[in-house]
């Protein structure tokens, strides 16, 4: 079990699943998933924004495969296929900060646990791995960071809808920590998972410095 990484798009990509990262704006990085079905083109799945769980990915960037067993990665890819097939039959996937439990039921439909409003692009990826019994991060080690929190609230206020920024403020006030895209990507580069904050942030910052 070793983490692997490379530049995306990867024309020869043939592994079951990978975590993707790319720069979506000057301030923000974006995280998503690529997965394969043998004989078919690579597919994507990511939470682009509030109520926008989408399957197209156009960002250049990097890919990483966490240090997990191949059997477990095959299950994660299967879960991606299930969510992609079924999420439209359930509630739209909302954007929210607080992360506990998993926000998808057995069928891949959005069903956030109590106290959770939605997911970010990063916690969506964490959820998919968690559904397969694979914890990528040690969430309790994530710190509160006022500057990053205010930055995200400002983005939400700018692009709306208002309920997203309102919910973010409420969740941050209740103690939720922001888990950022590059930190989850960094966790995918570590030799073992789950990964504490300091290591994930260090690996993620290094890996995305040139994006």
């Amino acid at each position: 079990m070793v983490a692997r990484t490379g530049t995306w798009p990867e024309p020869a990509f043939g592994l079951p699943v990978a975590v993707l990262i790319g720069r979506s704006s000057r301030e923000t990085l974006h995280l998503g998933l690529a997965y394969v079905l043998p004989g078919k083109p690579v597919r994507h799945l990511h939470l682009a924004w509030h109520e926008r769980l989408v399957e197209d990915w156009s960002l250049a960037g990097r890919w990483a495969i966490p240090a997990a067993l191949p059997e477990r990665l095959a299950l994660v890819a299967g879960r991606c296929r299930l969510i992609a097939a079924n999420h439209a039959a359930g509630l739209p996937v909302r954007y929210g900060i607080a992360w506990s439990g998993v926000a998808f039921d057995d069928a891949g439909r959005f069903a956030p646990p109590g106290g959770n409003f939605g997911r970010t692009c990063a916690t969506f990826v964490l959820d998919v791995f968690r559904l397969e019994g694979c914890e990528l991060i040690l969430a309790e080690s994530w710190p509160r960071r006022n500057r990053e929190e205010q930055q995200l609230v400002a983005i939400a206020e700018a692009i709306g809808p208002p309920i997203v920024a309102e919910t973010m403020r409420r969740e941050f006030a209740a103690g939720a920590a922001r888990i950022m895209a590059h930190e989850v990507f960094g966790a995918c580069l570590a030799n073992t998972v789950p990964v504490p904050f300091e290591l994930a942030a260090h690996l993620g910052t290094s890996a995305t410095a040139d994006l």
Partner: protein
Amino acid sequence: MRTASYKAGMPFPDLGIVPRSYARAERLDAAANAAGVPGPRSRGPVLSTDAPPALQWLSDLYVHVFRRREAEAIDVIYAKFDELLRQSDCADCDEVLANLDVNRLNITATLAVLSITRLDRARLANWRRFAEMAQRKICREAPDRAAALLAGLLPLDS
């Protein structure tokens, strides 16, 4: 050691093992297909004909596993168990767990069954039995990796 003769086109005997003659039958089928020869072909492992209709999809699953179509096997497991788990009493899902033959699943398919059912295990009377069989299979087939393979999927104590 068990052995049996096998003839292309005949249902596969329920031995829980795959004799070499099956691979030979597959090669002969492929040659017959290539040559355009009409006639029956091997159908791969199948359930015994008295299996309840609700369990016939397991035959497809065993075929996917046998032919090493890993992604297809996972998709069948996730789709069918989701359908069964959405029923209020879970009786059909429990019946599947009681009838699943772990010896006809590979490790990935076994883990997929554990994964898709584990959140509902309190409602499934046969889950623990299946989980114990799955644990034994994985410990036997991949003793060095068993703990890592089962981590997060097998809370037998809870």
